[in-house]
């Protein structure tokens, strides 16, 4: 039986982005998603004694995160519920019929399948990014996902532009190969 170990020192560098992507498609707000990820790590620390080593560290953290997301929705739904009680659609004759328009579905459901596929794709890319050396993954994310310009990354990480492009090239080659195997 596999016996996985927990190492909280590496949680942020190894799992923060993965958990963040898992969360952001569900809560649609960066700040909230970051808070939920941080809370997940805190809760993980608290319940380290319950970790049996049967699941991987990431799977275990995801299971904690799922509960955090559910709690988050419970909290905002109970607030929403209180607000909705005060809505009275029939109070004003001039706006008669407006509620029909307000209640039309926003088209979200039509794209549900696409969204699920995009989420799976995002997590597949994260899986492939996990396999890169840490420095390559960091630079690739800064350049490609966060959209920093070359100069900013070079200054921040104290590397030359040609270093950066060599690293980006290696990361792109590895990612293409990984996605070729796991996604296409």
């Amino acid at each position: 039986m596999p016996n996985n170990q927990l190492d909280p020192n590496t949680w942020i560098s190894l799992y923060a982005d993965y958990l963040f992507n898992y969360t952001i498609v569900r809560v649609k707000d960066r700040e909230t998603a970051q808070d939920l990820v941080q809370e997940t790590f805190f809760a993980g620390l608290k319940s380290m004694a319950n970790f049996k080593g049967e699941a991987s560290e990431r799977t275990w953290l995801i299971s904690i995160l799922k509960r955090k997301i559910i709690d988050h929705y419970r909290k905002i739904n109970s607030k929403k519920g209180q607000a909705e009680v005060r809505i009275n659609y029939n109070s004003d004759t001039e706006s008669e019929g407006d509620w029909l328009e307000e209640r039309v579905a926003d088209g979200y459901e039509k794209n549900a399948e696409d969204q699920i596929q995009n989420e799976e794709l995002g997590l597949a890319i994260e899986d492939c990014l996990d396999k890169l050396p840490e420095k390559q993954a960091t630079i690739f994310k800064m350049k490609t996902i966060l959209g920093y310009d070359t100069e900013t990354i070079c200054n921040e990480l104290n590397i030359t532009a040609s270093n950066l492009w060599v690293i980006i090239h290696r990361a792109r080659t590895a990612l293409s190969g990984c996605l070729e195997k796991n996604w296409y």
Partner: protein
Amino acid sequence: MSTKNKFFISCEEAKHICDKSQYGEATLWEKIKLNVRLSWCHITRGYSSGNNKLTKLIRKSKIEAIEKDKKEEMQRKLQEEMSKY
């Protein structure tokens, strides 16, 4: 530099231009040189097609990342919390 050398670039340079063009950082002249190479070199064509596909997939996935500063802050808070246990 002869006209031939201006137009014909190595496979490595072509890949480098291809990488830069994924981020909109290749100049028009570089793109012309890349296209010349693409017209006859199947290795560059293969790399370029895989590279373009990767860019499209990343855009489609809408993948996000946490800013470096924010991650450092998260790490600091986690260390603080760890010291309590």
